[in-house]
């Protein structure tokens, strides 16, 4: 697999940016329920990482994972309709933003519990190894999630069984409002991961090419039976943790501004030049139309609420 072009990366990232802009508006106007966790400033990680995956590879992500879901190839219409609680959503409106599933694209779920999706991908990777089908699994989680016991258990087992898993840790310097140095005895995450017996590598998460490159290497290693890899992608959330957090009470405006200047979309646009604007405009339009379609989609039949606990 060749690396996608800069244009292709920008398209992916701009789609995520546009989606989040639309969702913010919908949330502010009360048309979107519940909390909304945005990934602005972090767009390069999903774009770069998912480009290295096949549709049949496995993925789990978090409440902040819609960018991965889209980059993995799931339908924008299905995702949007689910986020808006529509009958046409990926989960018929039952799951919502935090619970996106699409098995046809290897998406085993986004998750509302910090760290909880990590074990699933390890299990799916186990089946890939059993069936020798060459698939890999990627799970994305945050710098905060690494302090959750479940993640530790799952990482050890992936190393133990030498499973084809990529542990992609988005280090955006904060877990909610808590910086790493107030939550980690040792902020060097690579040491922790490699202590389980796997390769661990850090990458500039605001450069989709670099993310692609390290993930691709990890994917190749996994496919060839070489076991798991831990990747720490350094990035920054330039907005609040969720819609009700301005994100400014625990970070300086200078820090935020510096990262905004360094935002992956800015960086890539500069590299692409004048064409970038067109790509971004197209993404905006594409997403806007999808939002209109989703808003116009039918609400789920209330009777379905009481059905479907068991298959």
């Amino acid at each position: 697999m060749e690396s996608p072009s800069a244009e292709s990366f920008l398209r992916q990232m701009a789609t995520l940016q546009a989606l989040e802009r639309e969702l913010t508006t919908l949330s502010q106007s009360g048309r979107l329920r519940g909390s909304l966790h945005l990934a602005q400033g972090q767009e390069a990680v999903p774009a770069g990482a998912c480009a290295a995956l096949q549709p049949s590879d496995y993925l789990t992500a978090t409440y902040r994972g819609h960018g991965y879901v889209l980059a993995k190839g799931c339908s924008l219409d299905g995702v949007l309709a689910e986020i808006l609680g529509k009958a046409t959503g990926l989960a018929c409106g039952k799951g919502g933003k935090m619970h996106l599933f699409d098995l046809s694209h290897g998406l085993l779920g986004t998750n509302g519990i910090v760290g909880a999706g990590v074990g699933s991908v390890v299990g799916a990777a186990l089946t890939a190894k059993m069936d020798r089908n060459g698939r890999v699994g990627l799970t994305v989680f945050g710098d905060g999630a690494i302090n959750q016991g479940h993640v530790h258990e799952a990482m050890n087992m992936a190393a133990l069984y030498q499973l084809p898993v990529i542990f992609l840790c988005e280090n955006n310097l904060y877990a909610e409002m808590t910086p790493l140095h107030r939550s980690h005895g040792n902020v060097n995450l690579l040491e922790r991961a490699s202590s389980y017996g796997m390769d661990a590598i850090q990458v500039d998460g605001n450069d989709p090419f670099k993310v692609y490159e390290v993930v691709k290497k990890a994917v190749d290693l996994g496919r060839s039976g070489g076991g798991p890899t831990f990747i720490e992608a350094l990035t920054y959330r330039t907005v609040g943790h969720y819609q009700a957090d301005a994100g400014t009470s625990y970070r300086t405006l200078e820090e935020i501004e510096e990262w905004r200047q360094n935002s992956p979309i800015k960086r890539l646009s500069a590299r692409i030049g004048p064409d970038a604007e067109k790509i971004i405009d197209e993404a905006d339009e594409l997403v806007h139309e999808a939002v209109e379609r989703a808003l116009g989609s039918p609400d789920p039949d209330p009777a379905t609420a009481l059905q479907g606990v068991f298959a």
Partner: protein
Amino acid sequence: MREITFAQACNEALRHELQRDSSVFMIGEDIAHYGGMFRVTDGLMAEFGEDRIIDTPISESGFLGMALGAALAGKRPVAELMFIDFSLVAMDQILNNIAKTHYMSGGAAKVPLTIVTQGGGYKGAAAQHSQMLEALFLHVPGIKVVTPSTPADAKGLLSASIRDDNPVLFIEHKQLLNLKGHVPEGEHLVPLGSAHVIQPGTDVTVLTYSYTVQLCRNVVQELSSFGVSVELVDLRSLNPLDWDTISQSVTKTHRVLIVHESHKRCGVGVDLAAQIQEQLFDELDAPIGICSAADVPIPFAAGLESEVLPTESRIRKAILEVMGREV
């Protein structure tokens, strides 16, 4: 009396107890520097310092284990679990350790530990952020469960929980956090195990707690104008239970509806219904009704969620059903 919100009332209780007893301290996620996801711990770090208001990693099992150890070492820890749904990552610490330690030690060890948490639905928070899991903590013995419905009770019960020598799970409902009400200034205590008869009545007893108290209030008011006299009881704590108030009420009305937001199977409704029929069988003129969440995970979409959780119209219907009236 001045009005403050439920969250502010909790904040006052915490501040009061922290001032009063130097062995009280708090531990939890984003409670110190940020002041808590729901502002319940706002300003406490500034007043009491980082040593007593402690931010933790996302390690619920770890910090609840620490709270247990601190309690055994003589402190009165108050641990905040941001959502009750997250209790499930720490269930071994809570149910196998915190709840059992006093008994397992033959009484030698005391565990004066309060877990403050937030739960409930109606906000589109979906299946993993909308639960009310109180039944799990009632089933395994050893932890008290407190479920206030008003700002004043929140303050009084939280102070009482912290002063209790036992583990207490204190549940704030996300729909109540911004509710305003009159709250006494200074010391205010509501004993655990005392229900509150919100409105006396003669036709039917409605037993409820936490947010559904507010829904029931509206329904009861409305029904009274149709000549239906409901005795509305806010249980306030589920363990200990105020059995005297329950049995007095049932003995008067002979009809009972239990309303709660959590699931039905092995929930609080069946628990109370079974105990009432066991103790007061001959007093009952009709089957005891239960109005609860349907036994499905909480769905996201508004139209689905309101199909699953108790609503005023479903509560009204359930009351009339217990009364044998046409619905």
